[in-house]
């Protein structure tokens, strides 16, 4: 089974890095969509179903925190798990985002295995390095 993923980050370089790390990690990606901020992410979500959203926090326009709040208010979209990928590594921020509704938090810098493990935890799949069939 492959998962449709939406990567939200204002930096094209970081979006491309995350996409590559997902490939390297062995995480099964189906459709991969990208958005440069929260507004663009909502537009993508209006037209496409994804299994998980990976979002940065610090973005111009609608930032990651606002995106999580908007998704939480939406009857349909609130079921899509959101994982924060951020340079903000403080425990206060992690706690704040989890309280708002994020389901996972990956702190930059991160290893491919760390990202895969977090996605597997959030999606409730895999979790065993010897069994990536999911």
């Amino acid at each position: 089974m492959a998962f449709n993923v939406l990567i939200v980050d204002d930096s094209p370089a970081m979006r491309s890095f995350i996409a590559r790390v997902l490939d390297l990690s062995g995480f099964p990606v189906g459709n991969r969509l990208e958005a440069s901020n929260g507004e663009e992410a909502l537009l993508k979500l209006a037209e496409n179903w994804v299994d998980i959203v990976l979002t940065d926090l610090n973005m111009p326009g609608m930032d990651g925190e606002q995106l999580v709040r908007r998704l939480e208010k939406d009857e349909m979209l609130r079921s899509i798990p959101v994982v924060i990928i951020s340079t903000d590594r403080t425990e206060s921020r992690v706690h704040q985002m989890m309280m708002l509704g994020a389901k996972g938090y990956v702190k930059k810098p991160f290893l491919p295995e760390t990202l895969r493990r977090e996605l597997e935890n959030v999606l409730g799949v895999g979790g065993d390095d010897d069994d990536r069939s999911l």
Partner: protein
Amino acid sequence: MTTTDLYNALSDSAEEVLETMFFATVVGEASPAEAIHPASVAARLVFHGQPSGVFTVAACPGAARSLAAAFLALEENEVPQERAGEVVCELANMICGSVLSRLEPEELFELKHPEPVVIAGAWPCISALSARRALDLGDGTLNICIEIET
């Protein structure tokens, strides 16, 4: 918080980010007195919280190309200048976030978007409470500096 705290956090964060995300190793310390290369790719970001301050990164052309190539999985001669600038902004963002979380793990910080800047000649660290490192990455020097508002 002392200059030593800043220096240690800066050193540990830079090495962790460079190794994990850029596959780069610090091979030594360049001379901090050395003037910044006029064609350096530089970025600066402002952060607010307890403490507030400014974080600056400047990579000489060789280091900027090699860091961007590693991050984007491209050959060095395939890296356009604007992508190198984008990658240096990301680098600044990541090292700064890591430094702040080491200094004040319980504090909520607001990191502004990193902006490309032009730095040439003398290093502009002017705050009384600041730390700077000039890292030799083999392909060139990466200068990093954190300044705390006092």
